[in-house]
């Protein structure tokens, strides 16, 4: 990263420290700072949204934003800001854009890594995961999603990756059961861990109560995710579901479903509650208005346990084997380039 970027980073860090002193007063002033450092055409939509939020102090969004100061550990919040806002957005948006211009391909905002096992029992080692993460950072990606049957079966590895790549934010999709006090302390130590806990909307979620309580007590940031289809959509299409997860301290909820937009009652509710409840929600892959179309290859891509990377885990293409090839060559391969040349509609979830 060049001197200009480093100075910008210092400026943004200073801006954050300023904000941290008195968030309510300084938030509008922070917007002016960000506007100064980030080019006009970068993140325009997001900044417009942000400006609107901080102008309306009674809004649910302002409430959610304010809760980040009440509910999250100071150092963790600072790291979150540095990694998410500075690295993954303000700077990486520029860095990724430079890479995109240089290499004529998409550089995704996030890469998802499957920490599970293949049918033959193979999985990616720490060294392999680390190598790919280094390549991703070179190109301008600072957001990593850890998935798999249960990523926290490899607890030590997850913490080691977080501890090495302190300039990245890690979101781990987990059933949450492996989160104990010791792990929570490690998450506090590394500061760049966000848990996305799997919820079912049914009574078995009650066993997660102690885990949510633990995360809340430790002031760690976390949210939930759920998957549903026609048979269980009703479990989530209730206001009580939303209120429950908010009361349990979740800051976000990701919804995954192959139900078509017109049939999806949960999606309809989600859109309604966006105006009312302090919760960040995204419904993959229906919120295409927000993301400007299918996110495959552009916002995210997916690495499976056998080392093959694809624009999206739901696609049936073979992908590129990163044990043999570089990440950049994968981004320039045909299956990824389709999403660069034009913005196609979904080929995975809704096929």
């Amino acid at each position: 990263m060049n001197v200009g970027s480093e100075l910008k980073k210092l400026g943004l860090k200073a801006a954050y420290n300023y904000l941290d002193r008195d968030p309510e007063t300084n938030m509008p002033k922070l917007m002016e700072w960000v506007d100064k450092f980030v080019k006009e055409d970068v993140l325009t939509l997001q900044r417009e949204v942000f400006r609107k939020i901080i102008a309306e102090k009674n809004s649910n969004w302002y409430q959610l934003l304010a809760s980040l100061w009440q509910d999250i550990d100071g150092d963790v919040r600072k790291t979150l800001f540095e990694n998410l806002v500075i690295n993954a957005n303000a700077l990486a948006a520029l860095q990724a854009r430079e890479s995109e211009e240089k290499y004529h391909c998409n550089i995704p905002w996030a890469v998802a890594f499957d920490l599970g096992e293949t049918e033959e029992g193979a999985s990616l080692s720490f060294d392999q995961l680390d190598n790919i993460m280094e390549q991703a950072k070179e190109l301008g990606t600072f957001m990593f999603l850890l998935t798999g049957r249960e990523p926290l079966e490899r607890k030590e590895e997850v913490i080691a990756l977080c501890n090495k790549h302190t300039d990245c934010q890690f979101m781990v999709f987990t059933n949450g059961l492996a989160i104990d006090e010791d792990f929570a302390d490690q998450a506090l130590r590394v500061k760049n861990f966000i848990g996305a806990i799997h919820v079912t909307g049914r009574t078995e979620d009650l066993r997660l109560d102690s885990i949510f309580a633990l995360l809340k007590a430790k002031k760690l940031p976390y949210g939930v995710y759920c998957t549903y289809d026609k048979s269980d959509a009703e479990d989530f299409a209730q206001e009580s579901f939303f209120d429950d997860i908010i009361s349990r301290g979740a800051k976000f909820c990701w919804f995954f479903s192959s139900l078509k937009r017109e049939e999806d009652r949960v999606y309809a509710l989600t859109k309604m509650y966006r105006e009312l409840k302090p919760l960040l929600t995204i419904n993959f892959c229906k919120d295409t208005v927000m993301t400007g179309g299918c996110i495959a290859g552009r916002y995210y891509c997916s690495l499976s346990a056998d080392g093959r990377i694809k624009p999206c885990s739901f696609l049936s293409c073979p992908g590129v084997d990163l044990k043999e090839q570089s990440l950049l060559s994968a981004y320039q391969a045909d299956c990824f380039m389709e999403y660069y040349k034009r913005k196609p509609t979904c080929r995975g979830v809704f096929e």
Partner: protein
Amino acid sequence: MSLLTEKALAASLKKLLEKKTLDKITVKDITDDCGVNRQTFYYHFHDVYDLVEWIFTEEAKKFMNSCVEGRDWKESIEALMDRLLDDKSFIMNTFYSVNRRQLEKFMQNLARPAIADIAQTFAEGKRIEKQDLDFVVNVFTFGLVGIITEWVSDGMNEGYKGDIDKFFLVIDGTMEGTLDKFAK
């Protein structure tokens, strides 16, 4: 907490520093020597400099704990120099890396209590503001650390005792007078 792994990694780094400077040592060198994998290293430490920081902190703690109560301050400073000589390779090879600031801070942390002790003795019976006393302690600490830094950059020869005797003369001659200037 047992700190077994951290101690083993620290021992490996120190061993490697007997032959190479810090900037030439990789995490893989350390883990190969120690017999653990990279994952284990990164679980505990962000990078090699993080491990160095840990060593400095542990060494400083050990030194503090070994300081005998009521020991003459000259003996304290000589003990400090002997302690640094014990770790000669570590100090020399860390010195030539980019993290000299870490080494300076480490030496300041070891030297300051001894200097503060001396100042406290001279300040007895005088009315001096704490921040002024701290300032005077800082000036003499920086002086001592400066001498030690020169000594390290000259190769940590055994003849340092002569220089330290001169430093004691400087303190003897000037510290009390300096403190008088701040006394109310």
